[in-house]
């Protein structure tokens, strides 16, 4: 599979990769703001809508030279953004719909114009839309640096313009993306910034898809910034990460276009297509393994929290058992049934508790140790203090406090408990008449760290409530 890579040459593949990287970076730089402004599909709309611009430019200039074509395409690209905005405002149609109306209409108009021109010249919409990044090294331009592919020159200029725009108007872009109202009060028009951004999007889209195809444009506007958005919460970092991801996907895309089909016995395939695919792979990786917002990380964190809560519940259940009945031990079956949990999670929880020395096992039944008892005391105390607080201070109905207290108890540390205690005038009985266990001395002796509070809710109804309904 690696073997075909030996045939890579700088003269061909090097320039293709450079063109791909330049296009990917130019698009990704602006794409960050499109993703933040929820206009991700604008790139797609613009690349479809420019067709009439190309056709009209062809009619007027009567040639296929690139300058008039470029101008025509950019003008229509900007018009797409203007029309979209106008229909959205004047007709109060939602953004996506007005974009859909505008770009399909313009594309249709363009198709009709192209068909009219078809007798005179070959202006294939397919070619316009797909571009051919593989052919970029062939169309050369003589510059002071020697013979460089034209696409590379154009894309380098576009990238520098975008970069300059970003650097000079970073603050304005940032504020107007997150809070247009604020930017207006700060003395610069968010509308103006918006339209400059639209013009640059149109210029970038046209310059890129002419040489590398519209798939790459659309993909690079959205995918690397979206992946970066999943990896960080800061705009500066998001832009930097999206640039890096854009470069990686462009390089790996070209290599993939040569290597992957070879693995199945085919020759190389579309580079632009594979660049989009590798951006997609990067995005999937970011979504799954992202350090803060990654799906897997969140999943693991939630499992761990659920386990901690189950440990809490086991202790509290055993504690309440001892409080109300003579027996103070319970079997695994009883625990599982009352805590509404499966055998496996319960087994895990009891194992953890036994390793921590909070529960001891006696045959088939579990019993709290001293340290387990104090953990349970804290929890039950939190629960009953919350119930007291909710009734006394929040004015909730006695019947409806249990679930709330059940959720809050797991996130209540010593400090919060003593505040609750003060706020409710140090009660000894909770609203249901159960005694609130005292913990102050023991806890202070051990100098326990406050438990980590996380905003995770659990809806299981357990212990106190079930006990009450059993009685």
């Amino acid at each position, binding site marked *: 599979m690696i073997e075909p890579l030996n045939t890579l040459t700088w003269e061909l593949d090097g320039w293709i990769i450079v063109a791909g990287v330049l296009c990917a970076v130019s698009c990704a730089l602006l794409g960050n703001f499109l993703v933040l402004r929820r206009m991700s599909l604008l790139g797609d709309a613009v690349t479809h809508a420019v067709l009439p611009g190309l056709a009209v430019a062809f009619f007027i200039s009567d040639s296929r030279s690139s300058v008039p074509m470029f101008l025509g395409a950019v003008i229509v690209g900007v018009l797409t953004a203007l029309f979209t905005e106008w229909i959205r405002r004047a007709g109060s149609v939602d953004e996506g719909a007005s974009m859909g109306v505008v770009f*399909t209409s313009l594309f249709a108009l363009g198709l009709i114009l192209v*068909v009219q021109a078809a007798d005179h010249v070959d202006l294939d919409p397919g070619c316009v839309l797909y571009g051919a990044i593989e052919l970029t090294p062939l169309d050369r331009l003589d510059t002071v640096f020697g013979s460089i592919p034209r696409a590379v020159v154009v894309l380098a200029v576009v990238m520098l313009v975008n970069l300059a725009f970003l650097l000079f108007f970073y603050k304005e872009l940032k504020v107007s993306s997150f809070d247009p109202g604020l930017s207006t009060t700060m003395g610069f028009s968010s509308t103006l910034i918006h339209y400059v951004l639209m013009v640059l999007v149109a210029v970038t889209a046209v310059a890129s898809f002419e040489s590398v195809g519209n*798939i790459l444009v659309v993909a690079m506007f959205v995918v690397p910034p979206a992946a970066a958005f999943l990896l960080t919460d800061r705009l500066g970092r998001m832009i930097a990460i999206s640039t890096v991801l854009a470069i990686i996907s462009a390089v790996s895309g070209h290599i993939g276009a040569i290597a992957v089909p070879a693995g199945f016995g085919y020759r190389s395939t579309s580079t632009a297509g594979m660049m989009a695919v590798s951006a997609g792979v990067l995005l999937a990786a970011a979504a799954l393994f992202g350090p803060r917002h990654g799906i897997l990380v969140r999943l693991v964190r939630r499992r761990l929290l659920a386990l901690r809560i189950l440990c809490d519940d086991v202790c509290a259940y055993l504690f309440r058992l001892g409080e109300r009945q003579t027996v103070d031990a319970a079997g695994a079956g009883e625990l599982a049934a009352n805590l509404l949990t499966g055998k496996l999670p319960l087994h895990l929880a009891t194992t953890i508790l036994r390793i921590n020395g909070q529960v001891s096992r006696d045959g088939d039944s579990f019993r709290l140790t001293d340290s387990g008892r104090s953990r349970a005391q804290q929890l039950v105390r939190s629960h009953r203090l919350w119930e007291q607080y909710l009734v006394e201070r929040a004015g909730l109905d006695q019947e409806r406090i249990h679930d709330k207290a059940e959720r809050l108890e797991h996130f209540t540390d010593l400090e919060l408990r003593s505040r609750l205690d003060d706020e409710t005038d140090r009660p000894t009985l909770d609203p249901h008449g159960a005694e609130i266990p005292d913990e102050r001395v023991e806890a202070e002796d051990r100098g326990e760290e406050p438990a980590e509070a996380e905003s995770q809710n659990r809806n299981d109804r357990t212990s106190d409530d079930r006990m009450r309904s059993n009685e």
Partner: protein
Amino acid sequence: MGLVILVLLISVASGPTAFGAEGTSTLTDRSVTWPTWSQWQRVLTFRDYNSRVVILGTAVLGCAGGLVGSFTLLRGRALLGDAISHASLPGIALAFLIASAAGLDGKSLPTLLFGATISGLIGVAVILLIRNLTRLHEDAALGIVLSVFFGAGIALLGIVQQTQTGHAAGLEAFIYGKTASMGLADAKWIIAASGVAVTLCVLLFKEFKLLCFDESFAASRGLPVLLLDIALMSLVVAVSIVGLQAVGLVLMIALLVIPAAAARFWTQRMAPMTLIAATLGAISGIIGAAMSALFSKLPSGAMIVLVCTAFFAFSMFLGPQKGILGRTLRRLRLNRKIERQHLLRAIYETLERDASGVPDRFREFLSMQTLLPVRSWTPRQLERTIDRAQDDDLVRFRDRDQHVRLTRAGVNEAARLTRQHRLWELYLINYADIAPGRVDRDADAIEHVLEPEVVAELEDLLQHSPSRVQVPESPHRLDHGGAEATGSGAKISVDDSVSDSRETSP
């Protein structure tokens, strides 16, 4: 009702031989620019077999597109069709590759449709996963699926072209469509998928409606929201994929977006909106295809889109519900009403200051100069407002010295308005804790749109009996020029005796 139409359409479509198949010359002929009368006749009476199939197919597709599109539009996912039609490409290419490798006919329509559907559904699943599991928004999810899937499709097409049976021409049709050469098989697929879509939409109308307008409410009512969402998106997949291979990518997106967006200007209600959207879609299909059949140089797909666009533009300007013209007129009318109410109240309050309750004084002449500073009127504005009020017999204008006075009806109206204004001011002072110095403006912002019932309620609230109180005294000093120009509360003295009443009616 949609079902009845469909049954009719199917019966028409399933008997092609009965109508006889004629040549297809009108569609490929390029020399004729203006159709002859006989051509008009052929197309308009559907005598031509080919254009009959094309028109029928696009009409049904437009109908289904409008219907399904209404739901996706209201769901805030207008461009879902865009994403799905792009997402179907890798499926088409893969189906071709796999079928060819297995020794089957890779280009058979069912195979390709099957591949397209599978990959469209995977696209939908990915959109839902991104939306529900990450913090990316809907638009980014659509953009990601669209571009990555399409990229994969293009890469796969690159491989397809290398196979012996390759030459992707047949597959390219999925992207650009081949509306004009739509065959009976295509039409049948369209009718079948549209039939399923229409039936499901009718059966699940209530559920879809709830899903579109208030997802969380639907969830709280115990509806399987995710399942409904999947069902709705699957309908979009079904409609866009049959449409895609028959009419191409862009037209399919247009049929899903434009009729629904146009229908939105005509009604606020869901059922009529879906009906209007379906009708607009069908009519656009018919007109567009017919025009393309008449003028050989107009590609039918593009023509259908442009007819849709024309309907959209028409609706956007003239739609009674949200159309630009209607809204502008309504706003103009409201502005005039507000200006007139301002004029009447200005005259009334200016006279009130030195009228001391003498009824006749309210019909005295006032110079325009005394009225001008009351509000930020320009002389022209004031003159125009007075002219219009005079047309309605509320004021009399004396050209000779530019003076104006209220008529009998004008005094009544002015008293009513002033009373309404002050009731509202009292309410704001007593119940909303607005400072008396600011209350004039706050009341001004709201009084013009008050319903009579609200006024009655205000009276009850303020415990004024309507028979006794005609116009309560103003809770702040009536020093218009000064108070409004500076906007400061300091200059304004508040009379506590707001409950005092005064007989001011003529």
